[in-house]
């Protein structure tokens, strides 16, 4: 019997309307969300991510002939559910700006150089312990037009599918000690006691000697609820 999934925890997630983040003003729905019962549709999802997503890209520093400019880092962590169970075999995708704070994207017109040796996109499927691991370079901060002198903190975008449609999560990972986190409307949209969960931890055991600093970022998805769907 399939179990339903726990509801989205409103004390962990941002509201849809957060006026400090200007783009929410015209895009956040104004009607309340309609509460629906769990059904088998949301408690299932694609499972064979290796087949659907194609080849893994775990080393973002090796996507081109040369070596990208910037500080090489390792980012690793586990995808877990709320009960601490590993989520194996699930797709984790990442994307980020280069070390100068510029995305390899036509819409990004920030006056910072593109790096011909860095695209900044990766995807892996978690192992049997729910673990993922990327090699990349530390992204740069960059300005945006939300308000005067607005800068995004350094971040890596994360997309996690999880076991079912219900568990889908897109988020951003920040770096410890970044002073821009405190003044970023997107980071500050989350409840203050939940913001720590978006900040990676520096970890010397993950750091590779004379090669790359190591950061750990675990992702906790909605867990299965205790009561079965019937």
């Amino acid at each position, binding site marked *: *019997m399939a179990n339903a999934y726990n509801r*989205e925890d409103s004390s*962990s*997630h*941002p509201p*849809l309307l957060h006026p400090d*983040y200007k*783009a*929410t*003003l*015209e*895009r*956040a*729905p*104004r*009607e309340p*969300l*309609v*509460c*629906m*019962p*769990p*059904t*088998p*549709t*949301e408690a*299932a*999802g*694609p499972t064979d991510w290796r087949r*659907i997503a194609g080849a893994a890209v775990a080393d973002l520093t090796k996507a081109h002939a040369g070596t990208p400019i910037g500080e090489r880092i390792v980012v690793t962590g586990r995808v877990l*559910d*709320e*009960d*601490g169970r590993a989520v194996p075999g699930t797709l984790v995708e*990442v*994307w980020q700006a280069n070390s100068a704070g510029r995305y390899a*994207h036509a*819409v*990004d017109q920030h006056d910072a150089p593109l790096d011909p040796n860095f*695209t*900044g996109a*990766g*995807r892996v499927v978690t192992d049997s312990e729910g673990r993922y691991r990327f090699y990349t370079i530390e992204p740069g901060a960059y300005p945006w037009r939300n308000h005067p002198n607005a800068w995004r903190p350094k971040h890596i*975008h994360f*997309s996690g599918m999880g076991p079912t*449609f219900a568990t889908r999560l*897109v*988020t*951003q990972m920040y770096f410890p000690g970044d002073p821009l986190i405190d003044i970023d409307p997107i980071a500050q*949209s*989350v*409840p203050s006691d*939940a913001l720590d*969960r*978006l900040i990676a931890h520096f970890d010397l055991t993950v750091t590779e000697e004379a090669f790359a600093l190591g950061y750990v970022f675990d*992702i*906790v*998805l*909605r867990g299965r609820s205790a009561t079965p769907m*019937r």
Partner: protein
Amino acid sequence: MLRQTPSQTIGPFFHFALVSMGDDDEPTHGGRIEISGKVLDGLGAGVPDALIETWHADSAGFARTATDEDGRFRFRVAEPRAITDSTGRAQAPHVAVGVFARGLLKRLVTRIYFEGAPENDRDLVLSFVPANRRATLVAKRESGANRFRFDIVLQGPAETVFFEF
């Protein structure tokens, strides 16, 4: 008990990473349908940086596609069927939809139902939707076989119904 990792916006720069995907399996029942439409913001403008994901619990029910510069999207999935679950509750043919975009701090979840499906009148989930808003969840049949139109209005008088579950 661990706490859920907070959601953050997908932002405007995801296209080079979150590529279009579909399940290439041949549908085990029937054929495929094509659903196209537009994502619109509260000012009625197309949303050129949205990502749409679909799912229905059948073969080839998953698809992912970004909107174009006018906010248009188009995807093909296996034709969904009516479902009666183990408790005898009926669900009309439907596709679950997730919407991501710059300016959306969380995924929005909606459902696509299909014009003319007789099961719509007794669908479990539609029964939770105020009657005057149900039409926002029903795709219109277009000319040509198995083609439907479904717009996603993020905000405003014709706002699409979005769910929490």
